[in-house]
């Protein structure tokens, strides 16, 4: 019944010892690891550069502090621009009541986009005051372009540092990659 040679189950340990002796005999110097190494390095460098290039942009997208700063700067700018004007009601209330009211109505309706709320604050400055479209662009112009220009040299240097030292540079402070400083134009005081 128990015929030994053909039906006997082989001891699994035999496979292990066989494989071990095979790998010991194998000449690994014949295998060229360079293509694999190049490929893996390429993947690592590519992924690192993509990450480093994207990170400052993501940080600059819309940090809440910059949103608050933009909306308040717009309010302050509008208050200065409209300082000499009154609402045309019997009460003669300060004109800034209207831009502030418009922005508040947008916020109450559920608008959270800072440029839209800032635009509501500023919507009558060009029409009713000495502020020109160019003045407004200088202070409340495109943010994205400026951010990229500011972020770019850092992208390159972070990339080089990361590639050379194999280290990830510390995350830049969000404010430094944020929108440009909003400077209130004092000429609008008149």
């Amino acid at each position, binding site marked *: 019944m128990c015929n030994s040679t053909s039906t006997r189950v082989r001891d699994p340990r035999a496979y292990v010892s066989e494989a071990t002796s095979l790998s010991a005999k194998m000449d690994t110097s014949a295998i060229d690891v360079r293509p694999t190494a190049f490929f893996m390095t390429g993947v690592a460098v590519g992924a690192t550069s993509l990450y480093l290039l994207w990170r400052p942009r993501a940080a600059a997208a819309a940090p809440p502090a910059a949103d608050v700063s933009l909306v308040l700067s717009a309010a302050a700018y509008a208050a200065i621009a409209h300082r000499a004007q009154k609402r045309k009601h019997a009460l003669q209330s300060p004109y800034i009541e209207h831009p502030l009211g*418009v922005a508040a109505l947008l916020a109450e309706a559920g608008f959270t986009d800072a440029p839209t709320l800032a635009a509501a604050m500023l919507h009558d400055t060009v029409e009713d005051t000495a502020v020109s*479209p160019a003045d407004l662009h200088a202070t409340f112009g495109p943010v994205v372009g400026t951010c990229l220009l500011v972020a770019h040299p850092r992208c390159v240097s972070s990339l080089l540092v990361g590639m050379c030292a194999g280290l990830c540079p510390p995350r830049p402070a969000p404010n430094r990659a944020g929108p440009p400083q909003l400077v209130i134009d004092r000429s609008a005081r008149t």
Partner: protein
Amino acid sequence: MTLLCPAAPVSLNAPAHYAAGIVAEVTDDKALPKAARKAAQVAHAPTASDAAKAVKLADKLHNLTDLCGGPPVGWSADRVREYFAWSARVVDGCRSVRGVAAQALLSRVDDVLARAGEAAVVAEAAAKAAPPVEGGAAP
């Protein structure tokens, strides 16, 4: 470097996602006579960006709500009615605005537009107290 970091094109009138661009969209051309300026605003409204439409709607909502409380000095009841009618045309041009918040705003504007008669009555009462002046100021 230029390829990686193109400076954003600065066009003073481009519909945009930054404050100054939106303001440029909602600013009337003061060189035009008043009637043409008002007509231009009606014509321009449908072509404005969503953000500009929202600002226009909120602007009208604020002005119309104010008118319901009492007219600007020197406004006749007829002028109040005209302002409501013109605002309704601008609002109609903004109805294509997208977004939940914008639709909420739109329904508030519709509510106040329905109060045109009430505003005219208030203006009539005010006109009796102080007679209207031709060419009174805008609200």
